[in-house]
């Protein structure tokens, strides 16, 4: 019945995971980083399901359910954090602008490209 062999599924999962990892590393938009995380979680779930199909064990799909619960709560918390950041008056969703404490946020523009002026002088 299973027309996709384990090695094929593992290859697909590896490529999917690499794609998601590249998305997390390359994109700076928080929404795209969350979507890439979802792609990576799906790749992990695919490995579990494929292994469960190969050895005919329902444990693989049980782990898939756990990954589903994890992904749902992760997405909910991540999107809530994004909404919170946006509500504090952040004009973009760039992840690199989230490195300042609230006290510094009012003194300077965090998006001016050089959020920490002291670092340049030190080298």
């Amino acid at each position: 019945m299973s027309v996709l062999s384990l090695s094929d599924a593992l290859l697909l999962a590896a490529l999917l995971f690499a794609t998601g990892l590249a998305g997390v590393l390359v994109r700076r938009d928080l929404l795209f980083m969350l979507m890439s995380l979802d792609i990576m979680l799906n790749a992990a779930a695919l490995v579990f399901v494929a292994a469960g199909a190969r050895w005919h064990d329902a444990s693989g799909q049980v782990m898939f359910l756990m990954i589903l619960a994890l992904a749902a709560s992760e997405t909910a918390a991540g999107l809530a954090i994004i909404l919170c950041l946006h509500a504090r008056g952040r004009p973009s969703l760039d992840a690199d602008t989230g490195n300042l404490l609230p006290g510094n946020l009012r003194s300077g523009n965090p998006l001016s490209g050089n959020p920490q002026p002291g670092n340049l002088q030190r080298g």
Partner: protein
Amino acid sequence: MQFLALLSAAITLIGAIMVITRRVAVHAVLWLVVTLLALAVVFALLGAPFAAALEVIIYAGAVMVLFVFVIMMLNLGRPDSDREKEWLRPRAWLGPALLATLLCGELLYTLPFRPDDTAAPDLLTARDVGLSLFGPYVLMVELASFLLLSGLVTSFHIGRHRLRER
């Protein structure tokens, strides 16, 4: 059937690559939905129909709706009418629609193949998963419920802070 599996895998990969290269978030969500649907077909072809159904219902249904709601609430960048024009341009939805049509074609193609119940012993149905879930893995179900509850509390807490500061 091997051909169908390879086609679904290719659609999954193309969708995933398009997700991380889009510039507009809504377009990426469209591609991600297609990716998840193709992955559900892969699960079904692997002999896991329960996982495929859950992937469609929970992932492509619930989680993606969360994404769409947040993108709607964020309201980034240009005025609404400009953004809507950009979203509705055919270039934006033609690719996901094409891949979704391919998936639908796969579904219609496999419909005449009646699975005879005797010849498919390696199909892991929802009954097997349920017996395993509430047998040896019942503690894990409780832990997953803790995790979901903590996600709920986290979202509520962050949202409440936001309301109070306004």
